[in-house]
């Protein structure tokens, strides 16, 4: 696809980023003065970004398919030797899909936060961070080169850190924020190495130059860059082996979990892989690595989600699992890119709905997150229940809800790649049905097991309306996007597309999937006829492992943290003995020398005059020598 210089409304692409950035600046700098209006300012700027994005989308639709990509060069960013990076924004079919998702879901969650954070003293700061996040995420998806993408990538990481640790007085939240930051750093390291490798190989960071360079690149180069990008994607998208931060990140406010840790930021890894399609197309091995990471995360996330009692952590496990789906789809190559993005968008809607529903439930039960103390909320919180059910049906893939379409296509693509990958994905779909049914039963349908003094009630309108809007999206968007293959045709110029060619017919596959899903649902209903309000201790090994995040943290601690601490201690000793010793020795030497030298500073003006004469004589002497 050929990108064109931006014309007309597309020259204002930078405004998309600038609006929420302005909001973040105003709110964070003039927070005290804007205390009252900060939330409304944030909502206004984020929604105006959406409106602008939507107008651009409509404009883009009027143009022929091959001419929908635009590049606008905002200014020359870095120019140094052969390094020449422009602050360029690229708006094409893939970017606009993300822009719409981010700004729409983002705005909805801004509105939801209005109710959710109503009683928080620092809500101005919260909205400032949300705007900062939206701006950084838009920069990430609009960048036309990897270096600028990296800026957005770090920006969302920063916003995520700030928002996870928003209640910084809570020790667990502060620790979780630090953990997210540190784990993300590993992934970011991968991305920076990938960018450096690109510069080394192609002398440029821009997507177009890298795409062109990949046409005749060595296989090992594509593999190296691909694996480094995969590491980056795994860090940001909480995929195996860098998954550990996502579950802890649930310490942040629920709207944050919905926006950043479900709908948008964690999917940046998928975006990165799809955007780097040319690299992954060039290396079969890199694609296989992506599939393996996706498959492991898909199953592991589902198992964790099935064992957690904390509703948000269970949803986080689900997020990890669903992103595993997307990564797996992206690893399938051109046959899966479009479906990865499709699932990303539908997931953005239904997972946001469910997170917001979880927040609503927590709001109703004095911020209790333990599902064992829920139950019977379906009658008391009718809007929350209904919208959550829409999200539920969408995620397990019941037609005609959104998840059905996207998941179905991924399964089809997976089966056409290999039967084993297809079976793993199918198993994942079954697990999804199981743990989501468990969540719905525990929260809404079983008899009440509330703690004393809890009086569940429906949430205010500012919270229910975004949930309803997002639920409508979760219900219809799958059908709307796949009807007549619009989405495939839309993205095809950017990512390329191959028709899946599964060994079994589409109809048979659909029946098979629905059967597996139904089995998962029925097993969950059978398994959770009664629910104990306390945690049973005598459970299977798998459950115990899943409760501990499948020993993810234990592995991190034994493999990385302890050896790291040992190395650090050794380095400290080395630093104190060898390096400090050297420097202190030098310092002592200088000190003694200066003690001798300061004798010359007598304070007598006449001595100084004598020094001047001495200096003059020396200069004259040197002049004489030079003349001789």
């Amino acid at each position, binding site marked *: 696809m050929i990108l064109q210089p931006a014309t007309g409304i597309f020259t204002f692409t930078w405004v998309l980023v600038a609006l929420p950035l302005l909001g973040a600046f105003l709110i964070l700098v003039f927070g005290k003065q804007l205390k009252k209006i900060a939330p409304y300012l944030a909502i206004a700027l984020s929604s105006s970004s959406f409106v602008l994005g939507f107008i651009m989308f409509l404009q883009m639709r009027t143009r022929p398919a091959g001419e929908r990509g635009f590049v606008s060069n905002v200014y020359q960013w870095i120019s140094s030797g052969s390094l020449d990076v422009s602050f360029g924004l690229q708006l094409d079919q893939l970017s606009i899909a993300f822009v719409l998702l981010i700004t729409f879901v983002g705005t909805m969650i801004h509105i939801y936060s209005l109710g959710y954070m109503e009683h928080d003293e620092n809500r101005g700061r919260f909205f400032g961070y949300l705007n900062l996040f939206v701006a950084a995420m838009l920069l990430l998806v609009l960048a036309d080169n990897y270096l600028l993408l990296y800026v957005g990538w770090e920006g969302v990481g920063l916003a995520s850190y700030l928002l996870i640790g928003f209640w910084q007085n809570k020790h667990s939240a502060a620790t979780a924020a630090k953990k997210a930051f540190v784990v993300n750093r590993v992934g970011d390291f991968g991305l920076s190495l990938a960018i450096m490798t690109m510069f080394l190989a192609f002398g440029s960071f821009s997507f177009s130059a890298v795409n062109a360079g990949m046409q005749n690149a060595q296989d090992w180069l594509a593999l190296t860059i691909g694996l480094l990008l995969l590491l980056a994607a795994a860090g940001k998208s909480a995929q195996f082996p860098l998954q550990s931060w996502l579950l802890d990140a649930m310490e942040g406010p629920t709207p944050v979990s919905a926006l950043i840790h479900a709908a948008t930021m964690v999917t940046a890894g998928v975006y990165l892989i799809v955007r780097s399609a040319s690299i992954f197309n060039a290396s079969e091995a890199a694609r296989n690595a992506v599939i393996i990471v996706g498959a492991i995360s898909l199953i592991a996330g589902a198992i964790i989600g099935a064992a957690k009692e904390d509703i948000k952590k269970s949803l986080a496990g689900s997020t990890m699992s669903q992103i595993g789906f997307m990564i797996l789809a992206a690893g399938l190559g051109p046959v899966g890119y479009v479906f990865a993005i499709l699932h990303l968008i539908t997931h953005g809607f239904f997972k946001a709905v469910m997170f917001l529903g979880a927040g609503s439930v927590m709001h109703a039960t004095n911020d209790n997150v333990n599902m064992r103390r829920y139950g019977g909320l379906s009658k008391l919180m009718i809007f929350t229940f209904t919208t959550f059910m829409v999200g539920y049906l969408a995620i397990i893939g019941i037609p005609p809800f959104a998840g059905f379409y996207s998941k179905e296509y991924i399964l089809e693509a997976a089966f056409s790649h290999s039967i084993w990958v297809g079976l793993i994905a199918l198993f994942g779909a079954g697990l999804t049905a199981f743990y989501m049914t468990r969540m719905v039963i525990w929260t809404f349908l079983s008899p009440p097991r509330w703690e004393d003094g809890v009086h569940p009630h429906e949430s205010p309108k500012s919270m229910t309306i975004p949930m309803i809007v997002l639920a409508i999206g979760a219900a219809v968007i799958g059908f709307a996007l796949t009807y007549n293959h619009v989405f495939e045709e839309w993205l095809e110029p950017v990512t390329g597309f191959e028709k899946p060619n599964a060994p079994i017919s589409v109809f048979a596959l659909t029946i098979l999937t629905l059967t597996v899903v139904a089995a998962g649902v029925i097993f969950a209903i059978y398994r959770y006829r009664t629910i104990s309000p306390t945690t049973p201790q005598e459970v299977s090994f798998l459950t115990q492992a899943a409760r501990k995040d499948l020993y993810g943290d234990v592995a991190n601690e034994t493999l990385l943290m302890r050896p790291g601490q040992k190395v650090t201690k050794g380095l400290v000793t080395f630093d104190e003995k060898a390096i400090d010793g050297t420097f202190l020795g030098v310092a002592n030497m200088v000190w003694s020398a200066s003690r001798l030298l*300061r004798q010359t*500073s*007598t*304070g*007598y*003006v*006449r001595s100084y*005059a*004598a020094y001047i*004469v001495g200096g003059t004589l020396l200069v004259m002497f040197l002049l004489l020598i030079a003349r001789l």
Partner: protein
Amino acid sequence: MSPEAYLILSSIIFSIGAMGVMLRRNAIVAFMSIELMLNAANLALVSSSRTWGNLTGQVSAFFVMVIAACEVVIGLAIILTIFRSRRSASVDEPSLLRW
């Protein structure tokens, strides 16, 4: 006469001035020695002007005179101020700028 005679005279007077700065403790006399050095320089400028047949040397000497006048005014004012607070015009006494 040849130019070097004047230059040698000038350098002798200059060196005597330098010695005066180094030897005399009375601030006013030290200051006079500086004036003497400036005068020696002026003599060199005037004879150079004559050596090269160019009036710039004389103009420079004139400017040196003006600046020396300024310097005298400020220098004597400083000496007076120091004398007022310390009751002494010795350059050795305010030797506080030391280790």
